């Protein structure tokens, strides 16, 4: 009985792996956005004792300005997220969600929608490293392009989300990588806030 059960579990596990591989194969041909097959980077950041929420819009692709792009360019992105560490650190596990809408038709798929689930949360390890106002998080998610393609298990990383001041417009900034898509800028709308872990998101 137990042998049969063990065999059944083993076959189930193999089947699950095959399904997972098949899913990754299905999602592994998305052109310039690479999907599946590797985890987002967890290393490099330190333990964080805060959580982040945010939402809004970025237009300019640098940290120098926050003017809206020209209407004909459609060159802007909007977003919303909540993210936090979930365990005593280390490890740097995290939880939360992120929505990202890229409107530029010159970007992958003619623009896309992304919904991600947060799996890690740390302090930053890029040019904002050491800035206590900034956090870093990432995980996996689904890309739906404007030209009708869908890709699952796409890794993403918010390299930094920084709560510089209130209001967020013209102050806070965010940098994201989804596959090989990348964008960063100062908020032209919305806000990013850093909160204590005692909250309840």
């Amino acid at each position: 009985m137990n042998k049969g059960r063990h065999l059944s579990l083993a076959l189930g596990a193999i089947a699950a792996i095959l399904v997972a591989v098949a899913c990754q194969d299905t999602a592994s041909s998305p052109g310039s956005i690479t999907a599946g097959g590797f985890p987002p980077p967890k290393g490099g950041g330190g333990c964080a004792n805060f959580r982040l929420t945010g939402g809004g819009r970025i237009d300019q692709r640098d940290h120098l300005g926050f003017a809206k792009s020209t209407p004909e360019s459609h060159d802007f992105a909007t977003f919303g997220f909540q993210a936090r560490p979930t365990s005593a650190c280390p490890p740097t596990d995290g939880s939360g969600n992120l929505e990202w809408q890229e409107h530029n038709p010159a970007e992958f798929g003619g623009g896309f929608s992304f919904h991600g689930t947060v799996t890690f949360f740390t302090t930053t390890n890029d040019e904002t490293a050491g800035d206590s106002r900034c956090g870093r998080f990432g995980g996996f998610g689904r890309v739906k392009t404007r030209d009708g393609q869908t890709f699952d298990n796409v890794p993403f990383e918010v390299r930094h989300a920084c709560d510089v001041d209130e209001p967020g417009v013209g102050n806070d900034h965010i940098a994201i990588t989804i596959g090989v898509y990348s964008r960063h800028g100062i908020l032209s709308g919305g806000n990013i806030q850093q909160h204590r872990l005692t909250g309840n998101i």
Partner: protein
Amino acid sequence: MALKILSALTLLAGAVQAQSVTGNAFGTYVNVAGIVSQSPVASLPSTGGMATGQADAFSVAGAVDGRWLNAVTTGAVDNKKTGAQSTSEVENVSAAGGAITADIVTAVATSYFGQFTGGNDATGSGFTNLVVNGVPVTTDVAPNTQVALPGVGYAVLNEQVPSGDGVTSWGMTVNMIHVVLQDALTGLTTGEVIIGSASSSVSR
């Protein structure tokens, strides 16, 4: 001594619990002669978190047509910082039988308390390639701009409704396109169409 500490902790917890946030966002709302249709709504819990509502397309014949509807609201309550921010977007918009069209309609409503001050704003809201009554609108639309829609009624573009007392509460509602349908003979209101709506508020 223990009783004093317990009392202080209770007061602190009460101060945090007294704070609240709200957030709502949706792509489209149509009320024609009492028949209501609405795209998915994102509603933020009063204690914060995140909510979303999406649809690939939404259409009510003669009233509204839109694609890639996306509504997101996030926020958190904290005795240091409290905030809520909502975003709504609709692409390929056509409203009121084509009297208003836009490539993208974006609404952003932000409300917050920092350590020392609070505020609200609708910055980031806007239209991409807006056309009203066949005329392209190439400049930013001022808040609460009213335009006539012959044979339909009128529309308020970039409708902004602030709320709160500015001390213990702040709030903002943004409706990027708010069409008021009127009877051509009597002028009575027969319905409304809202496209790109985002709202948020904080209080303590």
